[in-house]
């Protein structure tokens, strides 16, 4: 029947509606407009179920299961962590692609490109912060996902290979985060990655370690070659590897089905892929809407966090001649840094992580207990908790507070005005640093509450080290603030003390702070809000 006859029979509107319905059915691979509306209204599908067609005929949905077991769709069964990991990867890819427009991996322009992104590109700061937050969130979420799978015992047969691909994905995620770390080319990047690649150098035999190190850096030290190689790793090689392993991982997940809560199955049995009709929850529309709403809420929270609370740091430009105090690894490598402080670089950097990785992969094969129920797996769960706690302790040991303390005078100044990063002085800001000479011996009351807080911290730190250290007695801290240039203040720290032999010693360090340097914006909203609140209580100019 031609279009014209249709028009004659149904009227023009009717014919157009008919064509529209046709097109809609084709685009959705089998769901007509009527069926779509019935889906949204919450009505049961007809028979045969047309909502299954997109799963078999369309590409995008073909890997998604047609229906899920009702117990597996509960939020506190999986917490949707796997879905979230995938979504975070998608966010990272999109924001990363956009950031690539304004960044080139060459040492002579990388840092300038970062500054350009942060100051001269609309939404540049937002996208960079979102990319950074997404990366850190992704590392956290995939780790939590692994913890969940471990606690529900979902790595047990038949899912051992899924677990293996998952561990690979975890390692690739960590490397993705680490390789991206170098790209801003600031002090933090350069030295954190130098440490990381030096650990690779520790792999025995010597020839292997050195070769791996050279391959990664492209030169004995990290420079232009290293930056380019890390960039290529970060934007193409590691994402491809991740996508490949993700395909395998997700295929296996769908093939076996999401494991059911252990109490709903017989011990040792896996019925996840044989779901009785009464327990089926169909992907279209129920699970699809559920996933979509979850991801929407998550996106909203992430955007709010990025806009109002999170700021990716940018330190001074990379200086291969000078390593700043308190150089730290990224937080997910604190455990590694902690170990490096107490053992030599082979054991802490290669052997233990290697053993850890092998153990992780071997868990499904070491665990012979057929039961996934908590009460039958006490050993596994307790050892998991202990392992987690060990990681946390090692992580704390990785922070600068542990075992890399310098001399007290250095530590005092580093605490209040660190070489890299913010510190209290910069968080307070230019406006709250009155010119003058101040001493920790004075007991004057300062007008400005924030400056008063600074002097209070200074005095407390000096007293603290005075009590603690034998070599640091009768200490006195001095702070001199002068106007070096219009808009530029010079902040001079001078600490004098008597050592154990009653010799007088002095330590001096000078910093400059410009009126327009917004550290408080970068690192701490705390003082901004304190300012705001104190202005509310007692308004002043």
């Amino acid at each position, binding site marked *: *029947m031609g279009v014209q006859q*249709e028009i004659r*029979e*149904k*009227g023009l*509107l*009717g014919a157009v*509606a*008919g064509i529209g*319905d*046709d097109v809609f*059915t084709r685009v959705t691979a089998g769901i*007509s*407009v*009527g*069926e*779509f*509306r*019935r889906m*949204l*209204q*919450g*009505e*049961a*599908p*007809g*028979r*045969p179920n*047309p909502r299954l067609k997109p799963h078999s005929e369309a590409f995008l949905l073909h890997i998604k299961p047609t229906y899920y077991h009702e117990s597996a769709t509960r939020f506190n069964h999986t917490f949707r962590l796997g879905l979230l990991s995938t979504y975070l990867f998608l966010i990272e890819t999109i924001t990363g692609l*956009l950031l690539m*427009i304004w960044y080139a991996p060459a040492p002579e322009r990388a840092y300038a490109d970062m500054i*350009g992104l942060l100051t*001269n*590109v*609309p*939404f*540049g700061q*937002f*996208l960079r912060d979102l990319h950074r937050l997404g990366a850190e969130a992704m590392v956290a979420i995939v780790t939590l996902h692994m913890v969940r799978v471990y606690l529900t015992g979902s790595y047990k047969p038949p899912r051992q290979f899924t677990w293996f691909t998952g561990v690979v994905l975890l390692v690739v995620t960590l490397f993705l985060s680490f390789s991206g770390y170098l790209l801003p080319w600031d002090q933090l990047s350069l030295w954190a990655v130098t440490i990381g690649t030096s650990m690779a150098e520790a792999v025995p035999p010597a020839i292997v370690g050195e070769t791996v190190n050279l391959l990664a850096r492209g030169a004995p030290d990290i420079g232009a070659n290293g930056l380019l190689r890390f960039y290529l790793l970060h934007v193409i090689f590691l994402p491809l590897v991740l996508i490949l392993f993700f395909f395998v991982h997700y295929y296996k997940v769908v093939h076996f089905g999401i494991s059911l809560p252990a109490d709903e199955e017989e011990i040792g049995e896996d019925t996840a892929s044989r779901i009785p009709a009464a327990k089926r929850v169909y992907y279209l529309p129920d699970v699809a*809407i559920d996933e979509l*709403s979850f991801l*929407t809420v998550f996106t909203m929270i992430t955007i709010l966090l990025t806009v109002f609370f999170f700021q990716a740091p940018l330190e001074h430009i990379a200086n291969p001649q000078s390593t700043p105090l308190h150089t730290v690894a990224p937080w997910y490598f604190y455990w590694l840094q902690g170990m490096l402080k107490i053992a030599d670089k082979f054991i802490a950097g290669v052997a233990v992580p290697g053993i850890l990785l092998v153990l992780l992969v071997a868990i499904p094969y070491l665990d012979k207990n057929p039961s996934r129920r908590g009460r039958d797996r006490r050993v596994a769960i307790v050892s998991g908790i202990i392992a987690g706690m060990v990681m946390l302790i090692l992580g704390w040991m990785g922070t600068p507070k542990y075992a890399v303390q310098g001399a007290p005078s250095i530590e005092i100044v580093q605490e209040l005005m660190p070489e890299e990063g913010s510190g209290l002085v910069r968080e307070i800001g230019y406006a709250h640093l009155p010119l003058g000479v101040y001493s920790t011996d004075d007991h004057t009351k300062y007008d400005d509450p924030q400056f008063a807080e600074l002097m209070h911290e200074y005095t407390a730190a000096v007293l603290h080290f005075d009590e603690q250290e034998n070599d640091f007695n009768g200490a006195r801290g001095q702070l001199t603030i002068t106007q070096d240039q219009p808009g530029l203040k010079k902040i001079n720290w001078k600490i004098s003390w008597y050592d154990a032999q009653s010799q007088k010693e002095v330590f001096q360090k000078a910093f400059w702070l410009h009126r327009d340097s917004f550290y408080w914006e970068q690192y701490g909203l705390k003082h901004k809000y304190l300012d705001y609140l104190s202005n509310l209580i007692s308004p002043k100019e």
Partner: protein
Amino acid sequence: MANELWQQRVQRAQEAAAARLGVDVSVMRPPRSPSAEGSAQEGKEAAPEPTVPAVVTEAEAVVEAVEPVTQVVTKTAPRPAKVQTASAGNAAADRVAAAKARAAAKAAANSASAAPKPATSRATAAKTKAAAPAAVGQPGMNRREFVTYAWAAALGLLTLEGGLATYQFMYPRFKAGEFGGKFDIGVASAVPPTDAPPKPAPAGKYWLVNTDAGPKALYMVCTHLGCLYKWAPSNNRFECPCHGSKYTREGFYIEGPTPRSLDQFIVEVVDDGNTAVTTDSDKGAVPPPVSSPNAEIIINTGKKILGKPSSESPFRAAG
């Protein structure tokens, strides 16, 4: 489309099934339901309460008739309810009947066979005009559907906003001093006098020409096919080496194959906060007047005014 053929097939199937079961063929065609809401409301089959019993019993009768023959194990109770849901709708009628016929033919374990086919709205549109009485029940969308559409609209808005943000992010940014950005060439007294030859600025790709009306910045690219024309001092004009287009000192077309006079960049004269810019007029771009010798001159190489057509040039050579 293929509706007629389809209808014939359906009828034949109905008749065959009826014959096999030994029932009247009208059993295969449940009555068209009052929920036919007209072609305006597509696809929604209202479940009219009053007709439920009738259809249900009929369906049940069919099911029961089917059972001994086919030993279908129906998952009884819910099924009839589902039957009425869809078959109460419009032209599901025929498809329903066909489905029942097929169920009768096969000993399908899934009682899905007793359940209706969903009515496609194409069927709806095709058949509804014939359908009779007023809609009973709730035609239109329910709360869930409405909220879903509202949420989809919100997501659509979010996507749109994201797209706009991405566009703004991606749009090229021009630096001052880079081609595409602004060039600050200093105070007006630094501009060469009105009788001096044009001064080239390769970084900005323009010739700086001072005219009686004000300074002009002529784009260095010939308006013919893109070569860079040269200044010919002996002839006191611009001449393009590629195809011989010639222009006056102020950029007007003299002769040559080019279709228009030279393009210009917008010149801004900033004097104590007041900005005068090159204006585009019928006769060509009018340079901004220089108000004082201390005014700053800025050439904006991101904004270009195209030259007027050659035929309008006041200096075009005769013939």
